[in-house]
């Protein structure tokens, strides 16, 4: 079967396995929150688990595996990390602002009113 991972030393294999598992479990918990929470503003918090530490763990595992194996450069992981760090907050912020705008324009009383003036 697979052979490029066979050259991986035991410590790296165990560490990578732990990181992968931690990342996946965190992401799953995040999506459980996405299902369970009652309103949009609570739900917006849930996926951040996956998009911060979850994907961070998996990227770390990938960096670990391929830098120990020395089979390829880890530039892609670094780029994805940079992209996630910059983009995750922007998307969530935009979404939260859009939701606030929509709720305010509908006169919902769940959100604070705009500051006067």
């Amino acid at each position, binding site marked *: *079967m*697979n052979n*490029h*991972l*066979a050259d*991986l030393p*035991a410590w790296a*294999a*165990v560490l*990578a*396995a732990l990181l*992968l*598992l931690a*990342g*996946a*479990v965190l*992401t*799953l918990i*995040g*999506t*459980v929150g*996405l*299902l369970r929470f009652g309103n*949009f503003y609570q*739900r*917006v918090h849930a*996926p951040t688990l*996956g*998009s911060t530490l*979850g*994907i961070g763990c*998996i*990227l770390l*595992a*990938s960096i670990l*595996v*391929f830098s120990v*194996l020395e*089979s*390829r450069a880890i530039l*892609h*992981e670094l*780029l*994805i990390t940079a*992209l*996630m760090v910059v*983009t*995750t907050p*922007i*998307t*969530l912020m*935009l*979404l939260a*602002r*859009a*939701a606030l*705008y*929509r709720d305010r324009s509908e006169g919902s009383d769940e959100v604070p009113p705009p500051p006067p003036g």
Partner: protein
Amino acid sequence: MMLNLLMGTIFLTQILLAVAMAFATFRVLRGPRAQDRVLGLDTLYVTATMLLLTFGIRTGSMLYFEAALIIALLGFVSTAALAKFLMRGEVIE
């Protein structure tokens, strides 16, 4: 032995991520409001990126990492555009 452990964990990771994607898809379909759907879609993109990364680790193929990078980029652009649309009703002002 260690190889089996790692391969098994990667498989388990992929299953967990697939379940996470199913949950996110449920939120996309269920709503109730447009912003909930967009949030679910964004979660779907992030989880898909992670799934592609695990495939990349398993096969060692460069292709998956290229795909992960592109999905991550597309996810950001589309979510930003959708959020903008929700706010103003148009994407480009």
